[in-house]
């Protein structure tokens, strides 16, 4: 009876875990595609801040030489220069949204591999949901190996394809994915002492 209760509990935890896996995979995909670039508030604030700073610094420097600095035209020119510089900075730091067609071959391969893992676990989940009889957690070594391969891919991913913001985010996403894999271990192999992701 206790055994049945344990299996039932593990099945529930496993199904819940699949949601975390789906979310981690989507997060990785969005990061690789730099989804949301150009729309973030902080990007706009940086642009405005840099442009204002250029006006302030520019007019101060010109002022040092005793030139007139209060002109509207001068202000507009300095603001435009600052705005252009900020756009250049934003492009390197915040990046621009990438299309699926812009991805490199190894990136496409990685995304397809991660998607295939999600599909494999959705299939197991569907089997659990459609079959009320006992389902034993089988094929653990292969599933575990597949995750090790995914982690290796993620850790070796060439982040130089990405803007700095997304390179930093990549590290966080890989850490979360590794945590999901540990949770998978805890559930599937019923290991003790490992908590949820």
């Amino acid at each position, binding site marked *: 009876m206790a055994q049945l209760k344990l299996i039932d509990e593990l099945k*529930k935890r496993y199904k*819940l875990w*699949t*949601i975390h896996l789906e979310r981690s995979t989507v997060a990785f995909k969005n990061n690789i595609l730099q989804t*949301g670039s*150009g*729309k973030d*508030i902080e990007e706009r604030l940086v642009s405005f801040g840099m442009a204002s700073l250029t006006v302030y610094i520019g007019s101060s420097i010109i002022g040092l030489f005793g030139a007139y600095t209060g002109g509207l035209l001068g202000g507009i020119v300095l603001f435009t220069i600052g705005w252009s510089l900020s756009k250049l900075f934003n492009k390197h730091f915040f990046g621009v949204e990438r299309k699926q067609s812009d991805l490199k071959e190894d990136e496409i391969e990685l995304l397809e591999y991660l998607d295939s893992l999600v599909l494999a676990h959705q299939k197991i989940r569907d089997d659990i*949901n459609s079959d009320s009889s006992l389902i034993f957690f089988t094929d653990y070594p292969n599933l575990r190996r597949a995750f090790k391969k995914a982690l290796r891919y993620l850790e070796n991913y060439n982040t130089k394809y990405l803007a700095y913001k997304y390179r930093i985010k990549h590290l966080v996403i890989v850490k979360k994915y590794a945590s999901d894999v540990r949770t998978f271990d805890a559930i599937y192999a019923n290991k003790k002492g490992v908590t949820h992701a």
Partner: protein
Amino acid sequence: MDNLVEKLKSLKNASVHEYHEVIQKHSHKQVVKELKEAGLSIEDVPPEEFNQLLQSKIKENTSFAKGAMVAGGAILFLQLLG
């Protein structure tokens, strides 16, 4: 997501609290849907786990909504949500 942005845009003279409430309700619905697809109900999930899923969805939706609203020119929303 588009549905959420449309809902937010349709709010006239709404307070920050009202914006957050719409995002929260939308996120709650999404999490319940995710659980349903996984073959689970809210009762199957420990409250702290459910809360964790909900909070991360709220964070994601808020970030997305801010971006979409600002891109759409809803400056008031930018000011409200900071």
